């Protein structure tokens, strides 16, 4: 398939309705061993027939060898399998908890999906508590389902949490920036105060620092760095550091 056309546009802003043609090349070269190169479409890209359709506005990103996606700024979360999110327990219904994750439907969380939980040893979860959990079922046609343990039955950082910290929401784009392996934003933050940070892919962040004042500062900094360039952010962080210390 023809990826070069797509490669050229990497880093550019695309709008819904932009199209790329994915032509299957007819003439197979005899000299080279041609491996069929397939473009893998991430969020914001859709294949329809021989065309690749952009369906969200944003910047086209590429990851070697041929993964493409659209990086957009949006607020509303759509559950995806394997993502970790911060949820708010809204109800206890028999054997499951109903958890609000900011999506279109409340997710269910079984009381057995906690580390060490058994039928007799129920986890202590109250309505209104925060849970850090992972999606095991998330597709458009089914009720999303969360678990608070990994495949080997360990909590691995998941479960009920949240005392003494502040929960707030930011755009999904900022969350992804925070979680990217070489996040500048995160390293900037690390230099500022010692703080605990829980990042949910659903745009919810939870921070706890040594004092209320510092927690508030971190929360406000993160919220405002949503719409800043790196130099602007660095400048702001520097100011805060000088003022606060």
């Amino acid at each position: 398939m023809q990826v070069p056309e797509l490669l050229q546009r990497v880093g550019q802003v695309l709008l819904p309705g932009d199209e790329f043609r994915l032509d299957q090349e007819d003439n197979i070269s005899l000299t080279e061993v041609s491996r069929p190169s397939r473009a893998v479409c991430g969020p914001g890209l859709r294949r329809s027939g021989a065309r690749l359709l952009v369906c969200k506005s944003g910047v086209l990103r590429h990851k070697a060898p041929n993964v493409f996606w659209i990086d957009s700024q949006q607020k509303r979360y759509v559950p995806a399998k394997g993502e970790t999110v911060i949820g708010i327990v809204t109800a206890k219904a028999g054997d499951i908890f109903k958890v609000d994750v900011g999506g279109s439907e409340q997710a269910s969380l079984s009381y057995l999906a906690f580390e060490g939980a058994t039928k007799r040893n129920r986890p202590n979860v109250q309505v209104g508590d925060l849970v850090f959990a992972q999606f095991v079922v998330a597709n458009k046609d089914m009720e999303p389902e969360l678990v608070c343990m990994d495949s080997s039955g360990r909590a691995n950082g998941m479960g009920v949490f949240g005392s003494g910290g502040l929960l707030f929401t930011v755009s999904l784009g900022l969350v992804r920036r925070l979680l990217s392996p070489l996040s500048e934003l995160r390293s900037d933050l690390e230099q500022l105060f010692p703080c605990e940070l829980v990042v949910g892919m659903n745009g919810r962040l939870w921070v706890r620092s040594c004092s209320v004042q510092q927690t508030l500062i971190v929360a406000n900094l993160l919220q405002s760095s949503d719409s800043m360039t790196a130099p602007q952010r660095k400048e702001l962080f520097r100011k805060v550091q000088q003022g606060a210390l």
Partner: protein
Amino acid sequence: MKDTPLSNCERDFILKAIEEKKRLDGRQTYDFRRIKITFGTDYGCCFVDLGKTRVMAQVSCELVAPKESRPNEGIMFFNIELSPMASPAFEQGRQSELSVKLNRQLERCLRNSKCIDTESLCVVAGEKVWQIRVDVSMLNNDGNLMDAASVAAITALCHFRRPDVGIQGDEVTVYSPEERDPIPLSIYHMPISISFSFFQQGTFLLVDPCEREERVMDGLLMIAMNKHREICSIQSSGGIMLLKEQVMRCSKIAAVKVSEITELISKALLNDRTARKAGGRCGFAESMPQERITALKTDETLMETSDVTERANDIVEKAGAPPQTVPSPLVPAPGVGQVSQGQQNTWGLQEEDEDDDDDDDEQNGKETKMETEPQEEEKGAGDVVEISDSEEEEVVILTSETSGQAKNADSSSHQKRAAASKRRPKK
């Protein structure tokens, strides 16, 4: 739609922060958020931004008959609309508890305080008076809708100009703005509502609560006051016991805030007046922040349209002329006229067509069926036997021949066949 639930952790943190005299957005206890007042293009339209809370007020007027009890007073009407744009919890066209509360408070703040000279709105006593209508729409709810609404409403009233009227005998003429300059309302004073929220049974007090603080608070006190320090209305809700000193303190704070806000309103009105006098353009378009990256504006653009006529001609020509012939009216029975093609039932005709299609596709199936099982055909004359599988989308219809079918086709077979033929194009 439901609002996002508030977690225990947020509640605990907010209360803990308030105990330490800290607020979520870094404000001090008695600080208001930034207030921005802008005006719309026409008179009586005002936008107020209070932090992230946004409201719009529009004043309009019409001539109506006065109330019988007050024949020489104009009528004031207030309507607060909790638009679903402001919050997912708001629903269109439903009177919620909140909207009733806000409406009532605004009425008490602006109508019952007699801040507007309603007698000057009388045109003909007992017959015609002006009804002034104030519509306040919430655009974004980030807490303290009441204060924003009261500022927007009073500013819009100050900004509003009603058309001039002339009375000659019994005739009332309303002059357009071009004929005679419209007249502002006569406003005695400007009441502004200030909200105080109480936490921990009144131990802690905050001015101008934001949305999350509103959800945590125990009680709310709204004081409407003008700059002469006259209290126009006072309302406490939430069922907390307030001490006399607390109310006194609140009224003192309110007095300071009201004088600040009144100052801001008069400055905004003055700015707008000078801008309008200078002939500059004003309105929402002008208030759009140019420096933000989320905003963009273009100038008036001209378009090259030289080939438009040709293209239109082209399309029209290609489309061909519509049929000019009008079928002559037909009289099927005395007293009934009928034009157009639907004069005869064409069902039979279509039936034939479809059958032809079927034949083309599944001739083999049919023919073999016909030969092997002639008796079955006799029994269920028009019955359709479908061996279809929804997965494969291949429809095999086993029916009698066209000729036989046309005679003793009953309605059920028609329907089934129609259904089957509808499904075919998907293949």
